[in-house]
């Protein structure tokens, strides 16, 4: 990705997601959304998470 974008250490910064959205959606923000979903069962009523 570094070669393709001409930027250095994309992995530690914007990430590929940030590069292809021209910085509008940095990788960190994508991770944040996923994390909130991963915590969803601890945040909402238990009836949504019945086995």
């Amino acid at each position, binding site marked *: 990705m570094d070669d393709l974008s001409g930027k250095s250490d994309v992995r530690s910064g914007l990430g*590929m*997601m940030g590069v*292809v959205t021209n910085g509008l959606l940095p990788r960190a923000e994508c*991770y944040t959304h996923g*994390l909130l979903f*991963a*915590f969803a*069962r*601890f945040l909402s009523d238990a009836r949504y998470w019945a086995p």
Partner: protein
Amino acid sequence: MEDGQLELPPVEGAGQQAPGAEGGEALEAAVEQELDAIVAGAASLAAQALAPDGDAAQLPPPTVVAPPTDAPAALTDGVVLAVGTANRAKLDSVASAAERMFSAHSVRAFPADSGVSAQPMSVAETMDGALNRAQGALAAAEEAGVSAEFGVGIEGGLEQIGQRWFERAGSASSERRTARRASAPAVGTRSPAPSCGGSREGRSSARSWMICQASRTCAQA
């Protein structure tokens, strides 16, 4: 009567004298009064329907859905999150998510092994990696004497849909108190066409090399 003409029966009331001029005017006035009342009523209804904010207050109040009241106590107190990585971007993401979830929190790094391949090539493998990191971080925190409420893991991976590859991130959480775990894939974007040059040197080219190998599009593979 002339020939060819039919003799019609007499019409009831025909030939009788019509109501007097006074009776006709009274009827006309009554009809006009009735019409005026109808028009006035319609105008009043239209005015109510078009009235802006003033009359809106007379509408029933909207239904408000109360937030869940059985949220674990840990979510409202200071929460320690053990994150299975030392990657700055991932730690920042956890801090950002924690800001939204907890009123007070602490994010601690406890790098943990993903237990999957260096470049996960499916969503399932990616989420397994995230869960393993979450569990590993929780265990590492415990060994270090840190009482973390949650272990957190983030794993990046690829997913093939048709002939194309997409970047996907998996996130996972593991609660120490209940041993409950959860994971979720995040949004993803198409991965650019690889250009590996047939080399596995370097982290960036290693990823491209793996995509090339998996998609069998690399002439040098």
